[in-house]
């Protein structure tokens, strides 16, 4: 029984979600199963809004419905400041948690693990973890939480996963162009399969401190189906100090260690 069950699991992995009949994958509960490794091919992370080619961004018509983000006047000035300083102040450059929704369309894969009660999104960049609760629980009663990824409570409307996200901090950007939000950000996401290997991700962003009205983005996510594809650790922020932690080994000439790779750098004494 055990062997049979695990073989089934392996087959499910090899099939990477899509059934032979092309139907979308589903949990035993009947709800769509978004489990898999996903990534956008869009240029959304460079700039959500329409933009011509820049040295630091490929051109794109953007993913904002209506073209431009409806900034309040004072907020637009801040956005322009962010844009001017984007080469040094984008939180991505510090390897900080990208936040919601940026992690979804950042050009690096993320993996969804889905159960009846939740979806766990693990991001390769920074190894962040976001849980979308689908167990009927509500946002925490306390209103002073400030999360990098927000607090995500989802429910199903037919085959669409609708997620209400709030309780943000104001540390994250929406893209590399300095589009931003405040702690008042409120997002409603809508996730649905277009086919077994494509998710349409839509989100409505509302923030009375920064935008004059709610606005929408839409991006497609494609399932990674390459053989052997998997997430690989990318803590990113550790790269700056990994040099201080060469794996410890004997200093040259101090002992009879003959098993180490002689071509590897020797730790400084």
């Amino acid at each position, binding site marked *: 029984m055990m062997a049979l069950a695990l073989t*089934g699991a392996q087959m499910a992995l090899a099939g990477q979600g899509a059934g032979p009949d092309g139907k979308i994958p589903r949990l035993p509960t009947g709800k769509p199963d978004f489990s898999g490794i996903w990534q956008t091919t869009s240029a959304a992370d460079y700039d959500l809004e329409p933009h011509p080619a820049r040295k630091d961004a490929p051109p794109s018509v953007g993913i904002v419905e209506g073209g431009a983000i409806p900034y309040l006047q004072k907020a637009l000035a801040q956005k322009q400041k962010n844009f001017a300083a984007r080469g040094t102040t984008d939180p991505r450059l510090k390897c*900080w948690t990208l936040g919601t929704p940026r992690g979804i369309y950042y050009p690096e894969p993320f993996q969804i693990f889905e159960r009846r009660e939740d979806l766990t999104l693990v991001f390769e960049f920074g190894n962040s973890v976001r849980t979308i609760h689908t167990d009927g629980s*509500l946002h925490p009663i306390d209103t002073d939480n400030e999360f990098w990824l927000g607090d995500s409570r989802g429910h199903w409307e037919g085959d669409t996963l609708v997620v209400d996200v709030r309780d943000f901090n104001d540390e994250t950007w929406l893209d590399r162009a300095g589009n931003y939000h405040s702690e008042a950000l409120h997002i409603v996401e809508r996730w649905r399969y277009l086919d077994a290997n494509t998710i349409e991700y839509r989100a409505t962003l509302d923030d009375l401190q920064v935008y004059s009205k709610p606005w929408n983005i839409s991006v497609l996510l494609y399932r990674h189906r390459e053989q052997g594809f998997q997430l690989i650790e990318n803590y990113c922020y550790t790269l700056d100090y*990994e040099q*201080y932690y060469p794996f410890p080994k004997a200093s040259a000439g101090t002992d009879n*260690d003959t098993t180490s790779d002689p071509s590897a750098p020797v730790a400084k004494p």
Partner: protein
Amino acid sequence: MSTDNVRRARGIAGPLFATALVIPCIVFAQQPPSAPPAANTQAPAPMRWEKTVRTITSGPWKGPRLADGQPDVQGDWSNTIANHNNFTDPQGGIPGDPTVRRPPGPRENRAPSRVSDPADGQIPFQPWARAKQQEFAVGFFNPVKPEYIEPLARCAPAGSPKSFTWHGYEIRQYPGYIVFLFNSSYRIIYLDKRPHLPDNIKLWNGDSHGHWEGNTLVVDVTNNNAKARFARTAEFASENVRIEERYIFDNDRQHYNYVATFTDPTVYTRPWTTTIPARRYTVADKSDGWHYEVPLANNPNGPPIGDHYERICVENNGGFGQVATTSKK
């Protein structure tokens, strides 16, 4: 809402840089985890850690299974003996601790070494490696070189085995996968038969491939970057280490032992084994800021369930005047 979660959300719960780190780690060494980490002057409370390691044998799994046949071991877990201060004398504090503490008393009154084989409880280091470990251990309280700062204090993943002595953690299971959500990092165990990653890709948590043998999850860990330390006493492996982990789950569903054998001829004279006992935590437990950082969810229409908030570290890490973030009020 417990203050722990507010703290995590607001940004002072991550491991601090070494100089700032000394106070909380000493408190944890001598006090129960529910003690406030910064309350250095508080009188020590009675030890809540267990002093013995439960025996759990590998055998059939008699508990419930998931739809794919895996034993269902999902939920929250944490170690029962001590935190990550000291690998071979887990309740003995950090050697060289310059702060006067309660005398630890006779060794036999404390929990045994985490090294369960060899019988002397010591890692069989080659002489040069022992010297290096002791240099690092002394340097912990005098971090005059960058490498004396334990990487975890800089929010690096704790790796194996330290992740299992560093805060409580959660196990989530899926067809083909087991996911560990640690306080500092996540780790995916692959249950399919895929090959290991190419040898030149080295990872803090290694590359983990597992399978179930009855009540025991057996995991083969390779591709270790060997940068994480096992404890504040600075034990280590090399990039050539191979770890066979055996997670032996008790059929009482409340306990398991992490039993891992380290084979690394670069550093050790022989393979050795560590045993780290753990127990399950549920919503019946109090959120305590160490083992179980899970407040009750806002679930008015359903049963009591725990909330697992995001765990953020590097963005909130302190040590330089808490100025890591840009706009804190």
